[in-house]
Structures are given as structure tokens and as C-alpha cells.
């Protein structure tokens, strides 16, 4: 496919995503959006942390900055302040962006740094082998919750909104077209655009919880049900779950959009400014 040839680094292939992983679907959808929007990626910079989602940035043939675990939003803040004219896209995951880097997420949202933060949420640490994340649903088995997770997960989108993000949305790997449309809006937005995308880790989360293949997990998403929660509770093969796994049915779409000065505008960085800043 020409799009892929234009946007990808062929020398980095094959990629490292597992069979059935939802990240590939989201990544491809992202490439389609990039292909439509940008004749060249020269003015686009991708910033990533550590994890399976962050890793995909290495496959994009653009300026890419690979940072330490949890810190892409801070590196991106510096980058954006130094070169405000660049389009900055942060690719992070639930472990990277909500756990070890959770502090930076709320501050980047509060400051309204003008960038797009794409957070892949697969409810688990995939790259290190399937440990519990702050997004793991209650009751779910992971390699560090062998008795089922007892902790309550974050709602990333609500967290970002409460922290001050001026664009907040959620999409899922089952509906890449919806994701594409929302990503377009996020890229159009001036200010901190937070887009959570639900994807499935088949190899660790799916296998550990006996939720079937990647297709099974996508179908579970498609039923727009409290997907993983219901499946977990319904599986007779599972060990008894002390507290039934509960993930409320998650709405998709754009939840919040507002306009207030970006960090660059507030600081007068990059000239021009904006009436809102004054």
C-alpha cells in the first residue's frame, strides 16, 4: 500500500506487535489520517514513551523522539515551546501515560499544551509481560494480580477532562473509522487534545483472562457491552472472581471541547498570540 510506503520506515519491519493486538488496527487508522492531512510529515513530530503503543512511533517516517518511561508529555512540552509551529503528537499507553507518567498527564492537560495525546488503553502492561495497570478492570487476572485485581481503575478521559484538557474523546480499535474521525478533530483542535483509544492485548490480557482471540476481543468490543467485565464474569473456566469484574459500558466519541489559552499563548511563545491570551 502506497500510504504505508510513504509514511513508514520499511527498514524497521517487521513490527513487534503480537498477532491479534489491537494496536495495529489503530496504527493503520492513524496512518490513514496522516496520509489525508499531511502531504509530508516534515512538520509533524511524534513523541513516545515506553511500551507497546509507544513503540509504534519507531515505525513512522517522521521526526520521532523516544523518551523515558512515562515522560513523553514533558519532552513534548519542551519541544512544543521551542518550536510552536510544529504539530506534536504524543503516543503513549495506559501504563506509560496514566501510571508512571500520570502526574505529567494532568499537568500537560492543566497547562493546555497544544498537542494531541493519543493514549492506547489495553488495560495491562504488555511489553513487560502482562502486569496490572491503573486501567485494569476489577477482578481481571494479570501476572501481578493472580487473585484478580482488587483496585479500581482510572477513567482516563474523565481524568484528563477534570485536569483541564480542552479536547477529550474516546475511541476503540473495533471502530477504526470512528477513531479516524475523532483523531481528525483532535488534530484540528488548538490546545491539549486527549484521545483515549481502547485496544486489546490479546497475548497477555486476553490469554490470561481466557477471553479468546483478537477477533473474540473485537467482537466483545462490538457488542458495546461492559465488554471485558461481562466476559470475565461469564467464563465458567475462570477461577472464581472475588469481586465481579466490572467495567461500566464506556461511551465513545468527543466528550468535551472548549477553548482557552494554550500554554504557548499564555506565555506569549511563538509570537502572534491570541486574543484569549490577553
Amino acid at each position, binding site marked *: 500500500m502506497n500510504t504505508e510506503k510513504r509514511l513508514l*520506515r520499511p*527498514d*524497521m*519491519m*517487521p513490527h*513487534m506487535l503480537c498477532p491479534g493486538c489491537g494496536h495495529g488496527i489503530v496504527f493503520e487508522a492513524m496512518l490513514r489520517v496522516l496520509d489525508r492531512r499531511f502531504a509530508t510529515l516534515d512538520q509533524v513530530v511524534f513523541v513516545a514513551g*515506553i511500551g507497546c503503543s509507544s*513503540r509504534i512511533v519507531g515505525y513512522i517516517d517522521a521526526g520521532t523522539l*523516544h523518551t*523515558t*518511561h*512515562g515522560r513523553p508529555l514533558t519532552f513534548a512540552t519542551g519541544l512544543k515551546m521551542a518550536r510552536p509551529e510544529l504539530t506534536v503528537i504524543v503516543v503513549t499507553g495506559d501504563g506509560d501515560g496514566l*501510571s*508512571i507518567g*500520570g502526574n505529567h498527564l494532568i499537568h500537560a492537560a492543566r497547562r493546555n499544551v497544544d498537542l494531541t495525546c493519543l493514549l492506547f488503553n489495553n488495560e495491562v*502492561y504488555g*511489553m*513487560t*509481560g502482562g*502486569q*496490572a495497570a*491503573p486501567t485494569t478492570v476489577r477482578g481481571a487476572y494479570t*501476572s*501481578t*494480580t*493472580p*487473585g484478580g485485581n482488587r*483496585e479500581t481503575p482510572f477513567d482516563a478521559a474523565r481524568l484528563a477532562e477534570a485536569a483541564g484538557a480542552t479536547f477529550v474523546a474516546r475511541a476503540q480499535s473495533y471502530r477504526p473509522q470512528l477513531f479516524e474521525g475523532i483523531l481528525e478533530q483532535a488534530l484540528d483542535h488548538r490546545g491539549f487534545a486527549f484521545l483515549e483509544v481502547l485496544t486489546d492485548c490479546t497475548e497477555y490480557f486476553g490469554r490470561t483472562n481466557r477471553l479468546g482471540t483478537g477477533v473474540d476481543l473485537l467482537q466483545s468490543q462490538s457488542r458495546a457491552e461492559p465488554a471485558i467485565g461481562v466476559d470475565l464474569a461469564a467464563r465458567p473456566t475462570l477461577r472464581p472472581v472475588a469481586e465481579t469484574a466490572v467495567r461500566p459500558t464506556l461511551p465513545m466519541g468527543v466528550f468535551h471541547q472548549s477553548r482557552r489559552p494554550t500554554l504557548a499563548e499564555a506565555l506569549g511563545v511563538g509570537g502572534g498570540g491570541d486574543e484569549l491570551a490577553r
Partner: protein
Amino acid sequence: MLQQIEGSRAVAEMVALCRPEVVCAYPISPQTHIIEALGAKVKRGDLAPCEFINVESEFAAMSVAIGASATGARVYTATASQGLLFMIEAVYNAAGLGLPVVMTLANRAIGAPINIWNDHSDAMAARDTGWVQLFAETNQEAADLHAQAFRLAEAVSLPVMVCMDGFILTHAIERVDLPSQEQVDAFLPGYRPRQLLDPAEPVSIGAMVGPEAFTEVRYLAHVRQLEALERIPEIAAEFCGHFGRCSGGLLRPYRLDGAELVVVALGSVLGTIKDTVDALRDEGARVGVLGITTFRPFPAEAVRAALADVRRVVVVEKAFSIGHGGVLTADVAGTVSDRAVPVATVVAGLGGRPITRASLRPVFQAAAAGRLEPLTFLDLDREVVERELARMASRHRSGPTAENVLRDLGAAGSKIL
């Protein structure tokens, strides 16, 4: 009981036998198998009343460990590489407060460029934190050192870091003799803290200290480290008596009898070094090996005694102080500074590069002949380096070095993850 077991699992089994009361950690390769195994044990109720806490970062892991330890709990955590760096403020804090946390460091390189494979850069970055640092040569020793670590930490009220080579030990399945609960209980009594947060007798832990007392408090930390230097051989000897095999201690001398050249190193590479030295000995070379088991506190007197009759020293290091040279070398050189004994550094195994007998042998031969440079980088590809230097010289904007070198090697797409 003898078992064929992964190094990480062996450590987890031994830590479990030490009856920890709080285990907390954040996943990072190559440490994760240890805490996963402990998590499973806690779930099964094998370690009751132990709590297993999933935290949001390594910084939280060490902070939780400190909080738990301050209440008098026996606490264990594990990390590696970037994880150690991220928790470093709390690492200093644990030592400064004198809390006997035990931590496994599954040694791994530090980025950038990111690299998950083994070297000792992480341990060296924590050299001056005030933690005791022990290095395991084998999986058996890695397991054994943990029992000794709890014993030592609680005896001198200092945190102890057990360093084991990432992947080379953590992921290798080897024969390990694991003791019974009764044996470990007899060796490791319950923790009797010197300080604890106790409602019946309130204290303040972590008070601010100004110039009037900071030097004294720091000096006392040094005194405790020196006390550890006394206690480590005693504990190792006791361990030997209890378990019928010897592990730990300050040093691991090997074929030092009549040695004119001694190779000094830390950790699992000692195995390869000993094999190389055996072959050289067979050919009549007077070569020996000195393994450093206790790196901090540094056993200077013991090293001095071990090197008393030596004419040349080579220190094989899996890390170096960039812009200077060997780290361990400086410590070792200090013990022979009153004699004309050249101490050369061989930097090897960075970022997981294998250290082979074939590469070590000519280096040791050169050292024995007095032809080894003071600082050598084992198996360094000079041509690749020269090409990148040429690129940098020809063009100011030569680009990111790591990417350039990978591209030069045609390895940009190599998936080492």
C-alpha cells in the same frame, strides 16, 4: 532441595523463605519474574500475612517500601536500570534513614539509547547512595545472598541491594539448592527494628538536619557501612555452617597462588574469566582471579591483602565512568597505590554484548606481558567508530549517533526487544 529453576524464581523462593511482610514493585525487565512469582505466592496465601502491593512507578515502589519499613515490617522490592534511576531519590532516602529494605537489582544497561540487556551501569549509578551492594556470581549465590541480605540489613540497619546480572542470571535455568523453611528460620530471626513508628512510643523519622549535625549523621552512615564490612564475613561464615555451602562474603579469590596477574571483576562474568584463566594456567601463565562480592562497603583491606604479591591487575568492568574510565578500577587501584602495580581497565559487556573467552584471552595475555593499555574496550568496532567520527567531522548536523551507527551496521531494523 536441588532444583532446576530460573534465577528469578530461585530468588523469589529464597525471598519467600525470608518471610517478607511487604513486597512492592513495578514491572521492569529483567526483574519482573521475581515479583510475579512472589505475587503468586502471596495470592496462594503461602506468605501470609505478607502484603503484595502493585504500585504506579519505581519511585512509588521504594517509597512504599520505606513507609512499610518504618513501621517495622520486613520489606522487599526489586528493580533494574531506569527503574533504579527513577527511584533514586527514595533510594538515597532509605539509606539515609537507615531502613533495612532489601532490593534485588537485575543489572541492566541505562539509556539513552534504550537497551534492556545486561551491564552494571545501574549498580554503579547507585554506588554512593549508602546502600550495601552485593554482587552474585551464580544463581545459587543470588538466592543465598538474599537470606544474607536480610540478616545483614537488619543487623546494621542499612538497606541492602543484591545485584544479579539481568538475563544472564535472572532468566537462566540452573541447578539451585533451595533450603527448607526451618533452615532459613534458624539463620534469619525475626526483624527487631532499631527504629519504628510505634503509637506507644512515638518518634519522628526523617527530620530535617542542618549544618550543625549533617556531617555527623552522614559519618554515622559511613560507620554503619564499615560495621557491615565486619558483619558480612561473619554472616557468610554462619551461612556456610547452617546451609553446608558457602556463598557471599567480601571477596571470591580464585587461583591466586603465585599469581602475578590478577583479574578483578563483579558478577556472573567471573565464570567466563575463570575458564579463561584456567586455560592460561594450563599453559603456565601465573594468572588468578579476584571476584568482588561486596562492592559497597568496599573491602579495601581485604583486596589489598589479596593483591599483596601481585605485579599487575586487570579489572573487567561492565560499566565505566564516561570521560574517565573504570569505576571499580579506581577502588582497586587505591589498594595498591603504594606499590608500582599497574591496574588496567577492560570495559566489556556493555548493553549485553557477550564477553567471550576468545576475546578475553588475548587481553589477559597482553596484560601478563605488560602490553595492555590502561583502558581497553573489549571487542570495540573501531571502524564503525571511525566512520561516525568522520561523519561528525564532515558535517555539523550529523544527526543522532545511535541511529547513525545502527544504519551503518545495517541493523536499524534489528528487533532486539
